[in-house]
């Protein structure tokens, strides 16, 4: 593999990584702080893509579609939390898995009713459809560079939010000891709803960003959900920093595995990576619980 190809494949790995991070950040917070397994996280990703494609068709603007779709996904996420998930916090993980799996079926059917069974699509925003030479002889699609940029910006935003704000302090406190935070008089219900909204918004954002590259279809959330779980397990449950590093690791490993290894082995690379990390650090790379 020559250096040009190495750079392009590195960017591909990075791009897959930041997409996974957008998904994993929300999932790991919900899992780590609320101790809630939410399989329906992928449904919010799918919903984000469908909403953005629809809004783009009505408004003709990608930016407007992005803002509107994200807002709606946040609202849907919070509604789901208030209506359904809130009742599950006290239950054990098996109940949560069952209930949120039901939510996947519900959302898939809802999307099929609203948008039909055929794949939906979303055009690339005008100026971002081409490709640029990032180095002489190394061309890369502009839109994928934008994805990398957005992912990095979100990572920075989350870092600031968690490390520098009062909300972030509560999130960190909640991740290490939920009961004490509640006992200290913090409105834990509101915190959970907010947190779930943030997670939903990030999943929606991932879906919106994926929309122009992928075919938007029922079930698109499930394939990325499995990878996302791998990421949060490697990163350490509850840790956004762990999710970021694990997402990039998984993205790069998957990309290079696919081009360097035979297909049978390539599809296992990230699971081998997960097994190796778990052998070495059973808590994941950056566990947030003591």
């Amino acid at each position, binding site marked *: 593999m020559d250096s040009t190809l190495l750079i392009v494949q590195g960017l591909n790995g990075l791009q897959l990584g930041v997409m996974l991070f957008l998904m994993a950040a929300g999932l790991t917070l919900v899992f780590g702080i609320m101790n809630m397994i939410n399989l329906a996280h992928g449904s919010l990703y799918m919903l984000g893509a469908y909403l953005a494609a629809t809004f783009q068709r009505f408004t003709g603007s990608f930016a407007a579609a992005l803002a509107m779709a994200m807002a709606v996904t946040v609202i849907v996420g919070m509604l789901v939390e208030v209506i359904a998930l809130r009742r599950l916090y006290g239950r054990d993980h098996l109940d949560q898995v069952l209930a949120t799996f039901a939510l996947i079926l519900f959302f898939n059917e809802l999307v099929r009713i609203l948008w039909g069974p055929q794949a939906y*699509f979303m055009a690339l925003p005008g100026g971002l*459809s081409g490709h640029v030479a990032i180095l002489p002889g190394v*061309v890369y699609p502009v839109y994928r560079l934008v994805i990398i940029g957005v992912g990095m910006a979100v990572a920075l935003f989350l870092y600031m939010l968690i490390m520098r704000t009062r909300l972030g302090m509560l999130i960190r406190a909640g991740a290490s000891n939920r009961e004490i935070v509640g006992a200290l008089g913090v409105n834990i219900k509101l915190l959970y709803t907010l947190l779930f909204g943030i997670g939903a918004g990030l999943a929606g954002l991932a879906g919106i960003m994926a929309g122009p590259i*992928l075919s938007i*279809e*029922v*079930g698109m959330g499930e394939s990325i959900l499995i990878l996302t779980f791998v990421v949060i397990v490697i990163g350490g449950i509850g840790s956004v920093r762990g999710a970021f590093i694990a997402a990039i690791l998984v993205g790069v490993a998957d990309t290079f595995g*696919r081009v360097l290894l035979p*297909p049978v082995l390539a599809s296992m690379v990230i699971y081998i990576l997960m097994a190796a990390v778990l052998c070495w650090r059973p808590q994941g790379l950056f566990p947030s619980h003591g």
Partner: protein
Amino acid sequence: MSKPLARLVFALVLLSATSGMAAENVKIGYIATMSGPGASLGTDILDGFKLGMKHCGDKLGGLPVDLIVGDDQLKPDVGVQVASRMIEKDKVDFVTGIVFSNVMMAVAKSITDAGIFLVSANAGPSPLAGAGCLPNLFTVSWQNDQTHEAMGKYLQDKGIKRLYLMAPNYQAGKDGLAGVKRYFKGEIVAEVYTEINKPDYAPELAQLRAAKPDAVFVFYPGGMGINFVKQYAQAGLKEEIPLYTTAFTLDQSVLEAMGDAALGLLNSSFWSPDLDNPVNKKFVADFKTAYNRLPSLFAAQGYDAALLIDSAVRQVGGDLKDKDKLRAAFRKADFKSVRGSFRFNNNHFPIQNFYIRQVVRDENNVLTNKLVGVAFESHPDAYHDQCGMKW
């Protein structure tokens, strides 16, 4: 003879008499991928099948139809569960549908072993066309390799020297590339198999660009095809290296989602919406009226599946018990296909023409396929010699 015994004998006589008479209705089990990335195929075949039923007077072979739909979710194990429920609980007379070859490989034997006729409206894996051919399996679509062979021949005739091949890593993907290689004799730069349903092809496209082939041939059906063709154009490869494929990647149900990324691409198929015969014209026009969209080749296959079952049931006068008679009726394929000439080979796979089509915008600015050439006339599949069935 005592009275009760006489009654019993009378009842038995009646019973044996009815077994030779027409069934009251015909139960069809429709198994296909109705959810997830392969869903558009399953839906299209079903819509085509229903239109076929409608054209047969909402009946098949003169009998009212009980249509039971099952979703295999593109998972062989789920397909097996759905099939066994239809065999044991619903007691269906026929099973049709079956989009994906991996599902077909899992269910074909158990369905046909139960004495049920299986009419494949899509999947045509090579093992079932060769030594593993089944007396109760009729494939109304094609053998997997055939459509690819047509494009292989076209590329060979065109004088392409260095060809790059890509397909998903499953039976139909391997059959497809084997089909191209059977007729393309130039250099194969690389033969890449990707994980099935992987949504992103960026790493593979970077490798492809670096290999600098003369042309690329891919087989990516359904949602995989949308992703591939869009990403191929987004990477700027469409202008750089010509992309050739089959109708499975550029069928009507995915063209709108691909948009201009698909425009101008060449693909091979046994069927095209502008194929000039009266059955096809009626099918295309009525499909548009009924569903408010253009039919795909999958819908055409579903339509022909309904017509084939109709013809077989009609010939045996609705008597579904005599399997040998029914099989003989199926073999005649006595129906007017949307593709014009159609007949079964000894292995119950079709002998048919294959065409080259190009993606264009029609007079309503809708993306569709247009015939641009003929690749094969009356083309049999490559495996029929290995099948032991003779008739």
